[in-house]
């Protein structure tokens, strides 16, 4: 057996065992989750109706969280940088939708469709002009500082233009749906379905198209990808653009659900980061599962810890992940 084969085989083994352990962890987490939810029902000392409501809301919320995180994890997986401006880009797209709704009287979801290419373009240009040189030079701090600067700039420019007064886009769709006694507004359901659809579409693009192939090539080995004719800088810019577009979709879908202030997205930077770490940095599917878990933790947790208290639980999950499985649920060996 030649050396190359040995290497290949052992790599395959590592891959296989990594996948197996990821499966075990997923099963473990599912079991813990179900057991935890059952415990809340049986001995949780809360009205079962409320618990069902919290779980349903949590799952729907988790879908949208997942979408924000997918953008973040994609950017990290390909460019190796953590986009600190993810949350403020979310806010920016919400305000974009808001201005379209207020000035032209456009329906929220149509405005979202318009916001997506705008945010994509913005992400593309930002990466090309400000970030590419830093990313290609290979240090971590430069891009991180740059996205921090962008985040501060976006939030404060929004503050100057729109002031800190809370605003709302109004209702997008009236009515709600009753599922197992839980009342779910159509807006939340649309947000969830939209988020899932975009995530699936993205996965398909990454796995099945030649463009997806070049993204994956750059992610695994930029030097090699450049050698076979991939324009690495352009792939970086496109990836950042896609990350921004994900956020634009999420922003539009969430706009009817929140009261908008320039800092509304800040919380999402850290939530998305927690989700991404939980799912495994750079793993799109992991981000979806992580999003659902964090959504559930937050809504079910708020039955016990009102206000900002439920966020403490979210950070509890984060700290546990860091110390028990720092590579995340679906992360291979780092």
């Amino acid at each position, binding site marked *: 057996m030649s050396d190359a084969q040995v290497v290949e085989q052992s790599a395959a083994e590592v891959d296989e065992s990594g996948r197996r352990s990821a499966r075990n962890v997923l099963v473990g987490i599912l079991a813990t989750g179900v057991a935890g939810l059952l415990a809340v029902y049986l001995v949780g000392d809360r009205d079962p109706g409320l618990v069902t409501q919290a779980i349903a809301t949590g799952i729907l919320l988790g879908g949208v969280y997942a979408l924000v995180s997918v953008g973040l994890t994609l950017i990290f997986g390909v460019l190796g940088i953590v986009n600190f401006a993810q949350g403020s880009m979310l806010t920016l797209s919400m305000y974009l939708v808001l201005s379209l709704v207020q000035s032209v009287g456009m329906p929220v979801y149509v405005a979202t469709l318009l916001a997506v290419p705008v945010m994509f373009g913005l992400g593309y240009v930002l990466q090309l002009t400000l970030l590419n040189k830093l990313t290609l030079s290979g240090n971590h701090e430069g891009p991180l500082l*740059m996205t*921090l600067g962008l985040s501060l*700039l976006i939030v404060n420019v929004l503050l100057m233009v729109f002031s800190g007064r809370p605003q709302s886009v109004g209702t997008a769709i009236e009515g709600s749906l009753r599922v197992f006694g839980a009342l779910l507004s159509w807006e939340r359901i649309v947000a969830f379905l939209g988020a899932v659809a975009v995530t699936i579409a993205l996965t398909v693009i990454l796995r099945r198209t030649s463009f997806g192939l070049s993204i994956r090539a750059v992610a695994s080995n930029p030097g090699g990808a450049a050698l076979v004719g991939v324009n690495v800088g352009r792939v970086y810019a496109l990836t950042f653009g896609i990350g921004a577009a994900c956020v634009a979709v999420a922003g539009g879908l969430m706009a009817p659900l929140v009261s908008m202030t320039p800092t509304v997205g800040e919380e999402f930077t850290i939530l998305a980061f927690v989700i991404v770490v939980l799912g495994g940095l750079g793993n799109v599917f992991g981000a979806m599962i992580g999003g659902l878990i964090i959504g559930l933790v937050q809504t079910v947790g708020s039955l016990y810890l009102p206000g900002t208290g439920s966020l403490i639980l979210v950070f509890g999950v984060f700290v546990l992940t860091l110390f028990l499985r720092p590579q995340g649920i679906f992360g291979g060996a780092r």
Partner: protein
Amino acid sequence: MSRPVETATEHAPAPGQDSPGWVRDRRARLQYAALGVVMVVMAVMPYGLTDRGESIAVRTLIIAILAIGWNLMSGYGGLFSFGHAAFFGIGAYTDAYLVVEHGISPWIAMVVGAVIAALAGTLIAYLCLRYRLAGAYFALATFAFAQLFLLVVQNVEALGKTEGFNLEILPEDSWWMMQFESGSSNYFWIPAALLGLSLALVIAFTHSRTGQRVAAVRDDEVAAESLGISVMRHRLVPVALSCMISAVAGAYYTQYYFYVGPQQGFGAAVSVEAIVPAVIGGIGTVWGPVVGALVVGPLAELITELLRSPPDSLSFLQGLTGLDVAVYAVLLIVIVRFMPRGIFGTLQRWRRR
């Protein structure tokens, strides 16, 4: 993993070997001399300052101390912290808690806070390093811890929840309780002295053998380890020192403003205030954070002033919030993109050519 930063190591022989003493000493002597000049300037400064000028100067000093702390860990240690608010906040809250609830002297509270912050910082860094969280991952882990602390403080009764702590104003001057009549120059001299101490510590540290080893570990962990340098220990030493210095800045914040709340102590804005001056001035240089603070501190005040009563030509600025932070966000972006060594780092490089 980190960008090569300007330090003495570039010109000194590899750590672990005996470098000729006078090389290190001459460079250190120059730094101490510069520090001496700065201290003399600061000693006479209050005589030329209005009350308003003094409050800006104190604010700048607090930012400078915080940034010096950040720079020690992130510039010299190579562990990028995005959550220095955690340690600033521990300093501020320990001071407030001990002074308000137990009537303990702020001087003691300051030291206690520094020790707690150093322990917390070392523990966090140790746990992160144990799991090989490096680079951006480490940065956001520290950010998450700062947010966690913020949430905990907001939800714990004994720490004043969202209200924070108000210090009692004493009727008479007291060095022991660090209280003087309003506008007293002592309020300037105390942080000036703390700044001097921090800088002296940084200079001594970077020229010490430990400091050289720390730089070696930062620049090439594997090579350093192969020379027999304990990587973990030399990663944690600058973290502990850094957290101590930042906590002292926090404690003085509480003392000067007689108040600290969750956002003033642990808010994300505080972490940003630690990073921005150091980046603008020059990461990994002794004087970078000070230069950066001299830019950021007065600039923020100037813009706030401008917004409050703009001249006629700029009247549209009236009451516009957010401009101050937006301006230094632009400054940060420009510096990171075009001058990654910062103001002081770039000047230093020109001079050496």
